[in-house]
């Protein structure tokens, strides 16, 4: 079978050794791990990784089945198409939002971002004791789109009663 990219998602109860167990099981498929990310979401293990292999999604799920058999982890594997790189060519900006927790903060703020044609390339949110925090990296369609986006984000933040800050991310090529 031709090599293809398979996305593996692993969610569940955290414990030491999950990453080693998952990647160890995949090593037997003679595939190549590519990009991956993992974090804890309110203490729950959450990981997505891409493996390039000729083994097929069913073989990947089968290799990982022993890890999910006791119900502590939910593991899925699916084939992805060729990567579609973002076509947004403008500058990168960091978006930071924080304020009292209430429904709809992420939807409202990211809705503004989407309406301005900016792409979110990284995002994380955290809920503390009544405090909600959102951090994202945006790629804007152009520098000219900044003023309108910034104004609308401030407007949305004002309605929600949260703080918003947008700051440039520059690459220093050394």
């Amino acid at each position: 079978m031709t090599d293809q990219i398979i996305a593996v998602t692993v969610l569940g109860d955290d414990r030491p050794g999950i990453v080693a167990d998952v990647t160890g099981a995949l090593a037997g498929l003679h595939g190549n791990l590519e990009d991956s990310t993992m974090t804890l979401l309110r203490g729950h293990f959450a990981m997505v990784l891409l493996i390039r292999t000729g083994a097929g999604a069913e073989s990947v799920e089968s290799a990982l089945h022993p890890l999910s058999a006791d119900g502590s982890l939910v593991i899925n594997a699916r084939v992805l198409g060729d990567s579609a790189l973002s076509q947004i060519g403008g500058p990168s900006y960091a978006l930071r939002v924080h304020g009292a927790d209430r429904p709809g903060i992420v939807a409202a703020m990211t809705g503004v971002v989407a309406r301005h044609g900016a792409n979110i390339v990284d995002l994380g949110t955290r809920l503390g004791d009544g405090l909600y925090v959102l951090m994202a990296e945006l790629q804007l369609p152009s520098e000219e789109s900044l003023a309108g986006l910034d104004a609308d984000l401030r407007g949305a933040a004002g309605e929600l009663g949260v703080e918003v800050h947008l700051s440039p991310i520059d690459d220093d090529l050394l």
Partner: protein
Amino acid sequence: MPELPAGTVRRVVRAPDLVLSTRGNDVDPTESATIELAADLLATQAVSPGCVGLAAQQVGVAARVFSIDVSGHAKTRTCHGAVVLCNAEAVSATAKERGREGCMSVPDFTGDVARGRRLVVRGQLPLTGEWVEITTDGFEAVALQHEIDHTDGLLFLDRVSGPHGIHPRRTYL
């Protein structure tokens, strides 16, 4: 900075070439091989678009020599022009800030790295071997620390702030 002979452009190596992870040997700045290397670093840097510094490791030599020139860069404040330093080390690095930096030898990624924005560096000039101390700030300070790291066998990848601090490079000059 003493006037050096005309240099020759050398090929820039890329990670994972092991020379990039090799700490450089101390050099004699007055030796002809060191003077030639210094001139070649300046020549190679000059023909590399967007390049503000180049270390010996980046042309395949594990030696404590680098060139730097941040003249004309938009972020430059204090600027010492085109300089080559041998056996350089940071005397002090303060006012750390996190920035996102890229490197000719790591063309696919950029990384978030905290570097001092106020810097004192000590090193020897090629040809004369004179010890000099450079006090600088801002972009030149960041570039100097990046190059000194190269001569110690360190890439920005070795200093990235955390697991989400590596990013696909968006532009490659």
